[in-house]
């Protein structure tokens, strides 16, 4: 028996010893968002093993990291949350001596208001939030937020709305004729009334619903462009609409945590995803554009002409990059959002 325990202990020691020799990096990312091939390639090139843990919303990620003791090295927040991460000291500036590919960030994505000059973060992927519609159920114009906010009879009770506050609020504010982060109370009251009324016709407020849209559990919804593309590739009836009253453009960016256990490996991984070929792997998996110069050349053929990625010129102007709102505006939006969710 004693011998058995000793052997067991030895085995445990050897495996942990091996693991720490090359090292690990712990990535905390949105669910269904990380290309497995990308991780295999990184492991093959560097010998560093990548562990991925999923989250389903910006709030979940923020709450978990704030508590500490999480063991993660990299997190991928959205633009509207980045200032919170920076101002609370949860993330650290990039180590440019390791992140030598910093220059590969596409010029239009360098001086962004959520992280000027990209001191802290690098693009992971960017996309738009619009509507997904099953065109076999609804034949009308799909470039219209009314599909969700004032649904036609054939879609009532068949709608899913992703429970991501910033996306839904932005769509609703534009629909009510307001600007991002508006403090116009008349507009916000209209937003509240529209959402509360519309919710009666929604079937669910759920994440992770690519298969539910494919299977026909839902016939419409508020959804992200890349996720819609993945659904459309499995069910040709599905289409992505860009609400002409306005739709939000967002970007999720990879950044290194202040309490990372493997900061150096994390920086290596950040540098790795800025290689055009590797950035393209991320896009080919999750079906969003990435903001790295030259990655288009490595992208799948289906992505180059996809209506979810290439915006029609007459709808491009309606896309708005949502800035981080002030605390008061955030409070107001949170209150409305909570009322809608309950």
């Amino acid at each position, binding site marked *: 028996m004693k011998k058995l325990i000793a052997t067991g202990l030895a085995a445990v020691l050897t495996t942990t010893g091996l693991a720490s020799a090359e090292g690990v990096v712990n990535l905390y990312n949105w669910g269904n968002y990380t290309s497995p091939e990308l991780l295999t390639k990184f492991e093959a090139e560097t010998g560093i093993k990548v562990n991925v843990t999923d989250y389903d919303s910006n709030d979940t990620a923020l709450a978990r990291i704030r508590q500490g003791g999480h063991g993660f090295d990299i997190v991928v927040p959205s633009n509207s949350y980045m200032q919170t991460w920076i101002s609370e000291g949860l993330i650290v500036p990039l180590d440019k001596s390791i992140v030598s590919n910093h220059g590969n960030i596409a010029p239009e994505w360098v001086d962004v208001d959520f992280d000027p000059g990209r001191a802290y973060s690098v693009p992971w992927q960017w996309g738009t939030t619009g509507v997904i519609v099953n065109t076999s159920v609804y034949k009308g114009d799909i470039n219209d937020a009314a599909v969700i906010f004032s649904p036609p009879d054939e879609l009532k009770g068949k709608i899913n709305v992703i429970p991501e506050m910033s996306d839904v609020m932005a769509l609703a504010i534009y629909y009510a004729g307001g600007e991002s982060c508006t403090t116009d109370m008349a507009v916000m009251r209209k937003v509240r009334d529209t959402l509360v009324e519309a919710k009666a016709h929604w079937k669910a407020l759920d994440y992770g619903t690519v298969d539910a849209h494919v*299977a026909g559990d839902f016939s419409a919804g508020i959804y992200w462009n890349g996720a819609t593309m993945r659904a459309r590739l499995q069910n040709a009836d599905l289409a992505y609409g860009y609400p002409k009253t306005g739709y939000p453009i967002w970007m999720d960016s990879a950044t290194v945590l202040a309490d990372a256990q493997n900061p150096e490996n994390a920086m290596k991984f950040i540098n790795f995803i800025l290689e055009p070929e590797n950035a393209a792997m991320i896009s080919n998996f999750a079906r969003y554009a990435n903001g790295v110069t030259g990655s288009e050349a490595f992208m799948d053929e289906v992505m180059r002409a996809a209506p979810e990625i290439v915006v029609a010129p007459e709808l491009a102007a309606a896309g708005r990059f949502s800035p981080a709102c002030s605390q008061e505006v955030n409070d107001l939006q949170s209150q409305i959002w909570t009322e809608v969710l309950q």
Partner: protein
Amino acid sequence: MKRDSHRWKWILVSPALVVLILAASGPLLIVAVYSVLSPGNMGGVSWEFSTDAWFRVFFKRDIFDPENVTLNADHLAVFRRTLWLSFQTTLICAALGFPTAWFIATRPVNRRMVWLFLITVPFWTNLLIRTFAIQELIRNTGTLNTVLLWLGVIRQPLELMYSDFAVLLGMSYVFLPLMVLPLYAAMDKLDFRLVEAGYDLYASRLQVLWHVILPLVKPGFIAGSILVFIPSIGAYVTPRVLGGGRSMMMGNLIGLQFGQGRNWPLGSALAMVLLVIVVVALVFYLRITTREAGGRDGQS
């Protein structure tokens, strides 16, 4: 000498006491304290005293018209749904659990273990996986609808997902073994000579069931009901997956406040309300059981 041994007892028992105090009272205290603080910036709490969370549990102040205060109908609806679904789950589990347990208890002794073993098999699979399996069964293009459509029983797929029904189905399935096992334990001890005596005295099958069997297995029903009702009230995964964020139960309402709702004090206050409901339910059950015992004493 005696005092010495007394002291030793306390020293020996202290690790358990420390664990109990730290693990049971500590978190509870944090929840209680958080419930009277103000919500922090994007989640968390800020250390300012406020009764706002408790106010919000029961009342709603219109965002654009602060003078307009009404009862919080949304929260009350969630409380009501939670209690009603948990009650229904308990009833369904009792109705299905009784014949199941009876079937097992009346098998030959050597085969009972096989049946009991089969009852525990679902526990081998993670709850989340089992819940997703139910989703696969009842979704619009799921097994049930496909079969019914093929048989011609229905023309349109039944909309079963994301409803109270889906949540009820999921919870009944998940909690059924928790009813079967205590019922079986009670029936295992049942003296079948009493059943025979009932028949000898010309009691009908129904009379034997009602006047002999049910009173004897009542402790099993009570234990099973507690084991099903209490976790039902706190259910999170099943309503989350099968209710789709719309047919919310208290567990989901609380979870919401710590995530998207960004109101930790309100979440804490709601958690305290849930705790009170559970304690009240337990006391209620215990009172039924003790009254039962007293009654039996009175008869003898």
